[in-house]
């Protein structure tokens, strides 16, 4: 078993609408020695337009993304899945991967009719190196050199961290290069702060976090806002009724007896204050937690551990107070309205077991036999993505009526600002709004993309006019 470090390069930042175009991963042993690596690219999906800022960041010319010799998005996702499954179980790590790369991967898997949660199922677990380096800077400053920006705030951009720590980076924002850099930073923390590394590894497992927060009589929770770490002694007061992986904690800097004496209205008002004494953590998101007896002095800041534990037990021994705090906190939540776009509905429930079986059947079937499988899916999101997948991969197997319907929908996404993704006009505008004198487009990358967009606008307009009389 092992660690898997991974990174993605994408067409933009919008989960569900942008796509992965480059994926890289390195598998290491438990001591962070490389034992395998994997890299794959994909050509652009026909209905996806890269954001100009993304192209500028990762330096990919539009011509490279259209290269027909590259694997299709479906083939890339199949290859990623196959490789990552062969490496499971492992602990999956990336830099800012929880918020971004992993989300992109989940959407890519879901939209190609695969179970989305590859890195947290199959006995895998996951953590984010971004949190690790911020924790290192906060509690073990000798571990890493963290550059400071002009406003006096620490900078945690991978590129600048690498530079400040003597990690040679071949090409920033290249997926494989970023994976190597992330691995190097982990090696530094592993060597220089074993305690921190151990806590990081330990809390990569959801069950371990759940067990820890529920069993401990208080612990330190570290949260990060605007790149600054904030440590608080807390005690777990219960589960989030709306999210199985959510846990609520009460800050032990608060006056517990005062809360107990409050009416419901007073409590709701109190919990609406900022900063709120109730904190929420996700047990599946590798939170930064420290046992009180492990907490370094800088984190405790003069706190008396015995007093904190006594206060924690006072809270835990009062389940009625815990329940009141949780219900007061959650009572002011706005109800969540499901999106009308399938791309934004990944978290609206799991496919049923029958659909899971049909998804397996889908990938094993000949293309000609896949349409009835897609049409038999109970989950409308999967039917939507399945038909789109058939159009991308094997248009000829679709009846003409269905093909035209898909062409209308897919080409509509390139011109309709309400469809959720970047439109041709928006992409063009973003290029035109990019300052031309900052030297950032020395290679003519945006100029080439602009020509492509202008040509595509003409083709799409013409196509839609002919096909749909618009």
């Amino acid at each position: 078993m092992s660690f898997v470090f991974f990174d993605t390069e994408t067409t933009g930042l919008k989960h569900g609408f942008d796509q992965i175009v480059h994926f890289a991963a390195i598998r290491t042993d438990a001591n962070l020695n490389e034992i395998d690596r994997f890299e794959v690219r994909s050509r652009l999906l026909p209905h996806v337009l890269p954001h100009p800022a993304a192209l500028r960041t990762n330096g990919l010319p539009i011509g490279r993304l259209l290269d027909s010799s590259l694997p299709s998005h479906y083939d890339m996702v199949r290859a990623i899945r196959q490789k990552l499954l062969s490496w499971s179980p492992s602990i999956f790590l990336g830099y800012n991967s929880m918020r971004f790369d992993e989300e992109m991967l989940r959407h890519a898997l879901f939209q190609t009719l695969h179970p989305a949660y590859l890195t947290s199922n199959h006995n895998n677990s996951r953590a984010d190196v971004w949190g690790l380096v911020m924790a290192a800077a906060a509690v073990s400053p000798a571990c890493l050199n963290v550059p400071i920006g002009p406003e006096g705030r620490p900078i945690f951009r991978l590129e600048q961290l690498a530079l400040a720590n003597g990690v040679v980076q071949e090409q920033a924002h290249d997926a494989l290069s970023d994976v190597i850099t992330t691995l190097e930073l982990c090696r530094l923390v592993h060597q220089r702060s074993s305690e921190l590394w151990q806590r990081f590894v330990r809390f990569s497992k959801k069950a371990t976090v759940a067990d820890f927060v529920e069993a401990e009589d208080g612990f330190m929770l570290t949260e990060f806002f605007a790149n600054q770490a904030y440590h608080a002694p807390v005690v777990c007061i219960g589960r989030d009724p709306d999210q199985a992986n959510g846990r609520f904690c009460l800050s032990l800097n608060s006056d517990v007896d005062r809360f107990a004496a409050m009416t419901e209205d007073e409590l709701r008002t109190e919990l609406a204050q900022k900063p709120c004494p109730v904190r929420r953590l996700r047990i599946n998101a590798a939170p930064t937690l420290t046992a009180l007896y492990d907490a370094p002095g800088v984190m405790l800041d003069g706190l008396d551990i015995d007093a904190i534990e006594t206060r924690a037990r006072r809270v835990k021994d009062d389940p009625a107070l815990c329940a009141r705090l949780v219900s007061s906190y959650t009572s002011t939540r706005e109800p969540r309205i499901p999106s009308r776009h399938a791309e934004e509905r990944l978290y609206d429930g799991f496919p049923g077991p029958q659909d899971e079986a049909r998804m397996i059947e889908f990938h094993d079937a000949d293309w000609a036999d896949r349409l009835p499988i897609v049409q038999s899916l109970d989950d409308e999101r999967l039917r939507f993505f399945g038909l789109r997948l058939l159009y991308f991969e094997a248009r000829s197997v679709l009846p003409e009526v269905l093909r035209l319907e898909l062409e209308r929908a897919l080409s509509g996404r390139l011109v309709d600002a309400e469809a959720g993704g970047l439109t041709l006009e928006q992409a063009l505008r973003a290029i035109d709004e990019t300052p031309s004198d900052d030297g950032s487009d020395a290679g003519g990358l945006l100029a080439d993309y602009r020509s492509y967009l202008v040509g595509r606008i003409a083709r799409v307009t013409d196509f839609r006019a002919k096909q749909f009389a618009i």
Partner: protein
Amino acid sequence: MTANPERAREAARAILRAFGVKGVPVPVERIIKARNIVLQYAPLEEDLSGMAYIKDGVGIIGVNALHHPNRQRFSAAHELGHHELHAQEIGKAVHVDKGFRVLLRDDVSSQGIDPLEIEANAFASELLMPSEFLLSALDAGGLDIEDDAGIEALARKFRVSAAAMRYRLAGRF
């Protein structure tokens, strides 16, 4: 060597007394750290629960980060047992195996064939499920060994796996 599980259980009881443990769950990590043994988590092979070794004079316990936390606790306690009971065996091997000797928890140990493993299991069992607290928990509620829900509730209270609790109640540790 013949296994002496009672010696192992007594060693565990001595640690509980020295640490002033007044109830369950027993804070095994805290005990390990208080004994200046380094506790490390790493993603290990599925059949590997933990390891005990000495490196540069420092006692180290490795635990499989991918296992369930209750299993991790038992592994940590088991490896502590090796440090407490088998320091000589661990120490001796320093000279013959790249700087340290590793005692792996594997199929052999779970079968309880190796005397060292029998003793480490007895130690871990007594440390995490001390007879004193186990008896009072059983007296309080009574327990039918065939009652799965009862065993699971008891296991949750002691933060061990239901399998470990069954073994303990059946007197196999």
